């Protein structure tokens, strides 16, 4: 069925082609205009207006009912009314577990953010790290030691104190010993070694690394676990840990520190969260947050159904990634009638790109090359890849496929990222330039209109993407069409996601693929898995582990080695400007070599009922669903008095 819907969507895309506005005109692009600020044409999408920065968080002394004091945080939003339920949805299969330390999917991790506090977090406005459970933190002059002072008197939802011991236990035992999702440990490894974690006194903990490690703070943005609950559990062993707090858990067994706590999981229907009365944040009137009593997330497996539910007022909000480009125009016309507003948060950190299989190795099992030798020569020719890149009309893709809800992309860091390289200029489609590049590389376009390489092989290759993704489907159709103008014969065939990943990462049986990857707005080193030549997601030339399980890259190209070095340097350099220069250089290499031919980055758009107050979307305050753009979820309140018998 997904495929059927995809076909329908492609048809509408083709029918809906309208003449392109703006783009090229003169070959030299308008350098004054960065891509991020390009106005979106042709629909009523609001321009990017984000809430003004209220400045950093202030501390607040909260008096508890038992007379103790909690060193909490003071809300930065306006004072609101307590009570009520917010109705959200998640598109997909729902959370797989409520244990954020085993979670490896975005939905489960998203629920973790709602239920658990972290030591540090990223400020939604400035993109800088600040203390959450940590009242303050300092970095030693040699950049090796990070000292955190924990807030006093913070309580778990069961009333037990949250202390340094919980922090120590989370990092030393759960994460450090690789229980659950060991990626949480691996991002903290500095040359294979986990940081040393010591308790200095009752409120202070110190993390020491063997050498300076810039991504450390990013790796510490992890929920802190209640030691008194997990200690007996961990003694039962690893196998049990994975099933602890899973979907079938009894919610009353859960102990949380975040604004909400699991109340009920109704399989394949919805997750109901309720207010944590012990949360450590108050508003300016001293009222305990969160305002909302309940936070309900419906599980909807189909995006069209999700849209209908929002239009039918069964949902209060469609968060980022739930509003598709093709929905924007329809939604925009209904804002007044259905009392909601749309918000444009600017480009997403994810990217969509085209890759050509550059593997030059032989499959040890079949003794045949992964890619036919003459095709290897094309894909490994920088001029060939550049010709393909210049032949793609990104603006047309944005206009026709994404309905304007996207940004053309040319670089490895999306414009949303802190480390995007501003010197890399966008270039328009230029088929003549592509033809010149191909000619220089020895390709000949014969009288039959087809392109041949210097040895007389017809340039023909397969292109694939994951079936059911209408955007990528439309992109592939457009690319196939553009490359045909160069004389290339591209055979497009979508395959199912799990099958595509098998080709990309295991069998290496592919030629061209359009894929997307999520990125990070804050930490470019998170791309190490993709960019290091022995990386696990080094998709354009994936090297497979040998019998010992090691991934070696003896055939790495010079520029791949340069990227390896830059990533290593970027990891050990803490000063922002120096880091930026390092990652700029990396982006320059990718821009020149085109191993990933970047195409677009979608815009993050949300649609929010006007009864939701204190909604303040920002560029950096974006999490996995269902938290999504609700970075200040504890401050969100409902304008209507609570307890109204509202429409179901």
């Amino acid at each position, binding site marked *: 069925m997904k495929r*059927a819907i995809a076909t329908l969507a492609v048809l509408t895309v083709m029918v809906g082609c309208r003449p392109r506005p703006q783009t090229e005109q003169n070959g030299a692009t308008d350098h004054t205009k960065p891509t991020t600020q390009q106005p979106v044409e042709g629909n009523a999408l609001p321009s990017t207006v984000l809430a003004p920065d209220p400045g950093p968080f202030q501390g607040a002394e909260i008096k508890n009912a038992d007379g103790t004091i909690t060193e909490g945080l003071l809300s930065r939003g306006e004072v609101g009314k307590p009570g009520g339920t917010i109705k959200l949805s998640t598109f997909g299969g729902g959370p797989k*577990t409520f244990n954020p330390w085993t979670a490896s999917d975005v939905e489960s991790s998203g629920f973790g953010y709602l239920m658990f506090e972290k030591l540090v977090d990223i400020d939604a406005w400035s993109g800088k790290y600040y203390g959450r459970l940590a009242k303050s933190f300092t970095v030693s002059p040699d950049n090796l030691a990070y000292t955190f002072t924990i807030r006093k008197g913070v309580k778990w939802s069961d009333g037990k104190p949250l202390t340094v011991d919980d922090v120590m236990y989370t990092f030393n035992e759960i994460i450090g010993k690789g229980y659950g999702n060991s990626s949480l440990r691996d991002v903290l490894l500095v040359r294979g070694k986990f940081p040393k974690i010591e308790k200095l006194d009752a409120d202070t903990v110190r993390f020491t690394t063997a050498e300076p490690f810039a991504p450390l703070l990013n790796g510490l943005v992890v929920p802190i676990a209640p030691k008194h609950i997990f200690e007996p559990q961990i003694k039962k062993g690893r196998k049990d840990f994975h099933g602890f707090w899973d979907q079938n858990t009894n919610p009353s067994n859960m102990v949380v520190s975040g604004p909400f706590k699991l109340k009920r999981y109704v399989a394949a229907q919805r997750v109901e969260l309720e207010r944590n009365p012990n949360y450590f944040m108050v508003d300016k009137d001293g009222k305990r947050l969160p305002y909302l009593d309940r936070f309900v997330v419906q599980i909807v497996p189909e995006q069209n159904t999700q849209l209908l*539910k929002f239009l039918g007022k069964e949902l209060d909000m469609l968060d980022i990634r739930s509003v598709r480009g093709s929905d924007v125009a329809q939604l925009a016309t209904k804002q007044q009638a259905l009392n909601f507003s749309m918000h444009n948060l600017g480009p997403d950190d994810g990217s969509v790109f085209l890759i050509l299989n550059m593997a030059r190795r032989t499959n040890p099992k079949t003794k045949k090359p992964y890619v036919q030798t003459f095709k290897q020569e094309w894909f490994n020719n920088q001029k060939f890849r550049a010709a393909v890149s210049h032949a793609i009309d990104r603006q047309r893709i944005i206009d026709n496929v994404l309905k304007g809800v996207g940004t053309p992309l040319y670089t490895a860091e999306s414009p949303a990222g802190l480390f995007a390289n501003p010197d890399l200029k966008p270039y328009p489609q230029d088929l003549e330039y592509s033809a010149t590049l191909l000619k220089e590389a020895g390709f000949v376009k014969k009288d039959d209109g087809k392109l041949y390489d210097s040895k007389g092989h017809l340039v023909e290759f397969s292109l694939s993407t994951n079936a059911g993704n209408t955007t990528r489907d439309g992109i592939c159709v457009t690319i196939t069409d553009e490359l045909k103008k160069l004389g290339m014969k591209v055979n497009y065939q979508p395959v199912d996601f*799990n099958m595509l990943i098998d080709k990309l990462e295991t069998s290496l049986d592919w030629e061209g693929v359009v894929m997307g990857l999520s990125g990070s707005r804050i930490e470019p080193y998170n791309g190490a898995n*993709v960019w290091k030549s022995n990386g696990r997601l080094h998709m354009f030339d994936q090297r497979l582990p040998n019998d010992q399980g090691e991934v070696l890259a003896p055939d790495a190209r010079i520029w791949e080695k340069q990227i390896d070095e830059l990533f290593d340097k970027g990891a050990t350099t803490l000063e922002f400007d120096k880091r930026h220069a390092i990652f700029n250089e990396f982006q320059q290499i990718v821009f020149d070599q085109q191993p990933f031919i970047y195409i677009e980055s979608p815009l993050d758009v949300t649609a929010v009922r006007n009864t939701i107050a204190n909604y303040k979307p920002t560029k950096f305050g974006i999490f996995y669903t269902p938290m999504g753009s609700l970075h200040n979820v504890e401050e969100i309140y409902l304008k209507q008095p609570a307890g109204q018998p509202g429409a179901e």
Partner: protein
Amino acid sequence: MSIPVYMLKRVLQAIPLLFIISIMSFVMLKMAPIDPLAHLRANPAISMSAIKEEEERLGLNKPPVTQYGIWLANLVTGNLGVSVQGADVFILLMQRAGNTMLLSSLSILMTWLIAIPAGIYAAVYRGKIIDKVFGIISAIGMSMPTFLLALLLLMFALATGWFPIGGLTSQDYYDLDAFGQFLDIAHHLVIPVMVLTFVGLAGIQRQMRGNLLEVLRAEYVRTARAKGLPENVVLYRHALRNAINPLLTLFGFEFAALLSGAALTETVLAYPGLGRLTLEAVLTKDMNLVMASLMLGAVMLILGNLIADILLKVADPRISLD
């Protein structure tokens, strides 16, 4: 052969059959070039060691024969294993089985309640306007893709506000009293039952009509009419009993469908059923879950056929069980 002995024989025959089905399903699934951990692999935030641990935990790094052996050994002890996501397959199936059973039994009931009288009516008034109307409705039901019908009905629900848009329960379901809960579920079931009834209607209505027409042409019906029996007696006592046999076989298949679910309808309508679970499992090659679903389907089919055969014997004494 008496019925209990016959049943025992059929159950014994089913065991090797199920064994063969399980091997075939396993081999076909294993051969599919699908990566069950694709979502982990495509996520840059997941490290290599985390993927290795998942492979180890799920036994994916063992040779297929060993994996099958583990699966079979677990099955014999009543353990269906865990899904890729780590949840117990038995619990996953149980969570959904009730919902699917509810939806499919209601739809089957509605289908038969409408289709049988409609079929009879159409046969009796063959060629008349009413027969043609039923014919058109059946044709639409047969040719309309279910997901499209489901989507159209959702739009109808949105436009009128009469029905909830997908799901099985409202979010305040657990705050309602028992009667309120009953009404809430009934309210949510209207659209899914309508979709599945409409789709299932055509086949049975046409079958009923065809069978009855054939019987009505038989000589004993002519004899009965010649004897001067009232038309009602001819129709309902003589013709119908003979026309119902092929439908009993159909009923066996319908029984098998009780637990197989309707994946597309469930997905579009956000209905928490087994079909959706199985479809997601197949697409991600969730071995334990798919195998459990397939085996469940096979058992239900064998059971359905058995029930149909016994019903046939009861309905028609001429049929021998040997």
